[in-house]
């Protein structure tokens, strides 16, 4: 191994292909989807499902490796790198659309991180079936956001039927509607619900349960209206005496005096944080490219290489934005490269999210500011990207929560020592 920044061929090819998708399937209808919240773009969903399947694994957050050609040399894994590049490119097209790309999403990622081999085999196969299929993850509750230990949802084992009975209120479930509602055009999805099997055990009592689409007692109670990413459905879900089979609990069903249950959730986040960062950076890149294009049209050139003292304010801003964006992307790449190479990346993963949260919001805010009325007008997509961007610093751990995670790692502190 040696330090190398050459993009692997398969990544470059995929990027080129997805750019075509972004330009032809996403951008032309971005505005329409923004203005018709909760509309479902079946064309896109069906097209993406077919396309991703032909690429060897339908969309989702679980890494997929190309099958090595016979006799070919074994290559280092790049599954997570592929995901990051893919997500960045799709988000460059439209991050709302990206969030409704069919596949396992955060739901499958939870199964991947906390499930047994049998569970993975059982729950993850469906995403490669004929119909596009979704899965979602339900952690957040009205009274429990950043503080996941405050989760109230409860799972009790009915020993007679060997089923879990789940009760709780979940909110802000990305793709919750598409994962749970049984649309004819979709395959059967699921939601992964975090609930406690022993509230007295705190985090050690937390478990994730796979709840299949259509399970009785589970209802979508609301679809949110949002600042941005309006193509993506964000659902509130209530569970009243919902019954799921015993084997749908991910990982171990017994409560040990440890926090393994919660660690399952955290492992999910280690894997997905750089991917969320990548989705933000796609939006930021779109905004920066648009800004540069408009400046160029207006005869404003960026004179790289000049000392700061000779640059105009606009030039300085653009240069700073490029520094932020490029360095932030490298942090994502490093985090996913570590994941591919089975190196523990909790620190890098959270740092990439901290940085991308900052960069994505700043770059889009600045781009709107610099372009004046062009930035504010709905004639262009920039104002939408500004609205879309903000979510990057909120979900998958807010900027503050990720700072805490980073700080604890570098200081060697526990959650109790730094809260």
């Amino acid at each position, binding site marked *: *191994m*040696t*330090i*190398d*920044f*050459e*993009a*692997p061929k398969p990544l470059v090819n995929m990027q080129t292909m997805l750019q075509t998708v972004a330009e032809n399937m996403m951008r032309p209808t971005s505005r329409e989807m923004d203005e018709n919240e909760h509309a479902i773009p079946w064309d896109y969903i069906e097209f993406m499902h077919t396309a991703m399947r032909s690429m060897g694994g339908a969309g989702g957050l679980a890494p997929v490796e190309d099958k090595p050609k016979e006799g070919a040399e074994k*290559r*280092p894994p*790049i599954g997570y*790198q592929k995901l990051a590049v893919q997500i960045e490119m799709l988000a460059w097209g439209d991050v709302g659309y990206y969030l409704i790309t069919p596949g396992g999403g955060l739901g499958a990622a939870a199964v991947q991180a906390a499930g047994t081999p049998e569970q993975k085999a059982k729950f993850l196969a469906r995403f490669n079936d004929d119909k596009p299929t979704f899965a979602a993850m339900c952690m957040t509750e009205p009274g429990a956001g950043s503080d996941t230990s405050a989760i109230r949802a409860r799972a009790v084992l009915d020993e007679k039927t060997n089923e879990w009975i789940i009760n709780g209120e979940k909110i802000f479930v990305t793709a919750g509607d598409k994962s749970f509602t049984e649309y004819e055009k979709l395959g059967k999805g699921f939601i992964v619900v975090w609930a406690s099997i022993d509230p007295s055990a705190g985090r050690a009592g937390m478990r994730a349960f796979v709840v299949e689409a259509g399970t009785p007692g589970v209802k979508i109670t609301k679809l949110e209206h949002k600042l941005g990413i309006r193509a993506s459905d964000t659902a509130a879900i209530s569970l009243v005496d919902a019954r799921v089979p015993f084997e749908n609990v991910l990982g171990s069903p017994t409560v040990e005096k440890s926090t393994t249950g919660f660690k399952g959730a955290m492992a999910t986040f280690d894997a997905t944080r750089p991917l969320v960062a990548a989705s933000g950076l796609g939006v930021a890149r779109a905004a920066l490219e648009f800004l540069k294009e408009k400046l160029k049209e207006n005869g404003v050139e960026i004179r*790289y*290489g*000049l*000392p*700061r*003292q*000779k640059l105009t304010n606009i030039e300085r801003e653009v*240069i*700073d934005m*490029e*520094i*932020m964006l*490029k*360095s*932030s992307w*490298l*942090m994502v*790449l*490093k985090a996913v*490269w*570590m994941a591919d190479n089975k190196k523990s990346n909790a620190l*890098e993963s959270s*740092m990439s999210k*901290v*940085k991308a949260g900052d960069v994505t919001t700043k770059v889009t805010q600045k781009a709107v500011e610099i372009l004046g009325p062009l930035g504010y007008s709905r004639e262009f997509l920039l104002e939408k990207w500004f609205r879309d961007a903000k979510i990057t610093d909120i979900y998958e751990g807010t900027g*503050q929560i990720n*700072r*805490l995670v*980073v*700080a604890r790692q*570098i*200081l060697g*502190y526990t959650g109790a*020592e*730094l809260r």
Partner: protein
Amino acid sequence: MYSFEPNEEQQMLIDAVGKFAENDLRPAAHDAEESRELPKKLVSKGWELGFLQASTPEAYGGFGERSAVTGVLALEEMAYGDLAGALAVLTPSLFATPVLLGGSEEQKQQYLPKIVGGDWAPYTGALMEMSFDFDPNALKTTAKAEGDKYILNGEKIFVPFAKDAEALIVYANLDGITQGFIVEKGSAGLSVSDEREKVMGLNALPMYRVKLENVSASRLGGASGHDFELILSAMRVASAAAAVGVARSSFEFAKNYAKERDAFGVKIAQKQAIAFFLAEMATEMEAIRLLTWEAAWKLDNNKEDAHTAAYLAQTGAADMAMMVTDRGVQIYGGHGYIRENPVELLMRNGRGFASLLGLVIL
């Protein structure tokens, strides 16, 4: 194929330089700054690590190939120990690396074996000039062709070890473009200030002002000259790598201090205001480190946008170093302001990266 792992040889170099930085440079830093004097042995010991020697091909007396990536890895470590010490150890590169990058075959043969084959010797370079908007691509020092020689006029500032320099590369404006010129010790019209330059930080590094009045010099690369951008970018990534090293040093001190210092019944590191500072310092450092690695890699691999990448890395690094070293002082509170504590010097050094160029090259 992406990879973020130094190879074995690089790792060995990082470890060796790291040890030198930690055991030799760091302990000497404070007194060297205050007395404006680096221990002589320190510089020769650093020279013996063989960094320049290992980046010079065998044909010119060295035993390796130059790699900007290896360079930024080593320099971050060295600057982490102490910036002034690192710059002093690497001063001969200010002459040797431009010769390697832009010199004619004859010039390489003439100088490189002598420099890399011997003890540390004051070969240096003179780029900066005293103007607020100093621009390496629009120098005020001029060069005019006269026969196969060139006549230099102008004034250079912040030239490390100029006093006893065996030879120096002076950068000058030749018909609108920047070119390097080799000026030999004792050339007529060359005068070096008696007084050392006094600057905000880097006081252990002897720097001088150099005047050129109709000095006759030979052009780097001979009559056809050389590509100055290669040299400039090698200076930019070096500046960026050094900035990361200085920032990391301040960060480490501040982190350790914050875990020791009590206030309001807890360690100050347990306060989010301090913990978030540290998290952001670590994050920004890592961001710029990776940007620097990538720029160096692009230079090594002749990528189209390598020069822009080097410029962006340098620019970002200057901001980052200021931010991190400022916070280093802030976290120490009143004690950060006192020169006994290391973060104070680091803040002065941290500010330099936006103003200084050409004091180090890889």
